[in-house]
């Protein structure tokens, strides 16, 4: 979805940034969004406050709220997928396997 939407919008993103410690995926505010997402997924409340404040400073409160909403959505969707054993159809499996190899995520329990 990142690859498709970024290409369609004229700013092709570097999907490898999803797996890297640093980077911005070639997107405006990409680094701040990655830092915010990482902080939400972590347990360090002080780090979360810092990441949230940094995002609000550069992008505004409404932007931060919508980023938090997207995180909440994927805290939900990941559990729907993993909790029901969701799998790709045969048509999509090859593409997804290739992407998994590229991103080095084929070893996830949920990939099997």
């Amino acid at each position, binding site marked *: *979805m*990142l690859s*498709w*939407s970024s290409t369609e*919008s004229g*700013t092709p993103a570097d*999907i490898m940034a*999803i797996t890297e410690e640093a980077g911005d*995926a070639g*997107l*405006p*505010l*990409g680094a701040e*969004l*990655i830092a*915010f*997402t990482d902080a*939400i*997924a972590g*347990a360090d409340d002080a780090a*979360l*406050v810092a990441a*949230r404040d940094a995002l609000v400073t550069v992008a*505004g*409160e*409404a*932007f931060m*709220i*919508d*980023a*938090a*909403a*997207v*995180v*909440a*959505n*994927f*805290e*939900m*969707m*990941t*559990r*729907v*997928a*993993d*909790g*029901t*054993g*969701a*799998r*790709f*159809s045969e048509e999509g499996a090859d593409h997804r396997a290739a992407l*998994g190899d590229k991103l080095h*995520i*084929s070893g*996830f*329990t*949920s*990939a*099997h």
Partner: protein
Amino acid sequence: MIVRDDLVEAHRVSLAHVASPGARLTAARRVQIAEVARDAYLAVEPSPPWVRPFGDPALDVAYRIARHAGTITEQWYEQIITEGMHPLDWVEIVGVVIATIPPVAFARAAGVALPGLPAPIDGEPTGREAAELAPAKLNWVPVAAPADKVASVVQALSALPDEWDNLWRLAGAQYMSDRQMDDPLWNRGTLSRPQMELVAGRLSLIRECFF
């Protein structure tokens, strides 16, 4: 801080849904499951995935989905079902967990007060299930018939229409609707679509969700 009205309402409705009688579980049981899910999500030092902390299959399943969803295997699902849990009970537990975590996750992320869980509403389970169920190839759990005609995440909770409705109501407010998803340029005037997908991909990676 001003939070969009549609997002506030979707989260309020989701927690009210948790505290209402489900298809197979009473509201009191659903709230008990939701409390486990909320606490598991927020725990600083959670139990490891292989521990079943409650000795109560429904609560153990809720805990693992809430905290260690990426470690769940089909073998573990089958083990729980073999122990006596009905597959639709499993589906309802997933529905309760994913109705509870988004409002909590959003509140913690945005720095607003964590929502409380409403008091459970009296009443018997509704028995509301899909008119016809079918085994699926794209999910472990049974789904509404016919199976495997739509994506696995779309059919995942279809056996229990009220859980399915709540899931997609939340998705529409937090992310986007099905219709909006087809437009790569759609956005709310804040994050661009690629920025939304970057956040989605990063969170999915951290949660070790291959899907």
